[in-house]
């Protein structure tokens, strides 16, 4: 009885694949539930030793332009910039700047590639390395 066992394998594989494909529920997609909030914050955030919010925002905009983004929105009061890069793919990024204590600013970036959130540390490392060059200031990791 060789064929039925092969058939069983066949169905088993399809079943496993369905489990893999049928990924997230609406709630999971809406609130990115499987992400650890703390981990995400630490890879998306850096602290800079400056209190000049406007200059920092302007430097963020310059860096985004250097990386090929076109700005969608900018708000000096809220300290945020949103930009989109189109290069066969669509990459959207929001960067916020807010004070941390008396002497520092926190810069947080979060990116969305096509329809998925970017949660690898590496792209953010590239972004902050470009930003710190333009800022002439070191980007400190935040715990």
């Amino acid at each position, binding site marked *: 009885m060789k064929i039925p066992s092969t058939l069983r394998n066949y169905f088993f594989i399809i079943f496993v694949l369905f489990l893999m494909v049928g990924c997230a529920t609406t709630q999971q997609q809406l609130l990115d539930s499987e992400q650890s909030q703390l981990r995400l914050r630490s890879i998306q955030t850096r602290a800079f030793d400056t209190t000049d919010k406007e200059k920092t925002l302007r430097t963020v905009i310059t860096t985004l332009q250097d990386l090929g983004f076109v700005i969608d929105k900018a708000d000096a009061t809220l300290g945020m910039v949103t930009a989109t890069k189109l*290069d066969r793919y669509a990459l959207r990024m929001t960067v916020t700047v807010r004070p941390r204590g008396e002497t520092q600013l926190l810069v947080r970036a979060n990116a969305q590639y096509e329809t998925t959130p970017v949660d690898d540390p590496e792209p953010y490392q590239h972004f902050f390395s470009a930003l710190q060059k333009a800022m002439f200031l070191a980007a400190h990791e935040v715990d």
Partner: protein
Amino acid sequence: MPHVSERRRTIFLSLRCLILFVLSLAFVACHPHIPPEALKLDSESLKQRQVQTRIFQTDDEAKVLAACAALLQDTGFNIDESETQLGVIVGSKDRSAVSAGQVVGSIFVSLLIGAPIPWDKNQKMRACVITRPVGEEKKTIAVRVTFQRIVWNTEGKVTKREGLTDPKIYQEFFEKLSKSLFLEAHEAL
């Protein structure tokens, strides 16, 4: 020989399993992954910056920004967003993306294969102008403009998403900006 044909069927079935598995993997892998160089500076970024930037001898950032807004209007853009405090103006426009060559090509291929081939129909073009004071005494203003576009075909599908990098575009834009600044300075029109 029933034994051999059974073995053949088994092999055939396993092959089908394998193909299905690979195909399904391709589906699962449609969780797209960001290209590693997407947020990396390279020599091309510096070249683009030079092409897209001009320096103007003035310390009046608001005036330059106003001239840029007027220029975007001159070139048919609608302003979507502006933030004077950060020197940001963003505009967009919708235009036709039909090119005669592509239409003729599509119709020719459609007739050959007997199925309709779509061609590019509409495009949304976006521009963002950023001004920023530069230099030690902030007596000069740097203006950087960047353009991008999205193209849809006759079936409504996106066929192109790209930044526009042709230096000629930027040359013409800045020639027009000089004119716009001149007109603003003389309060003509």
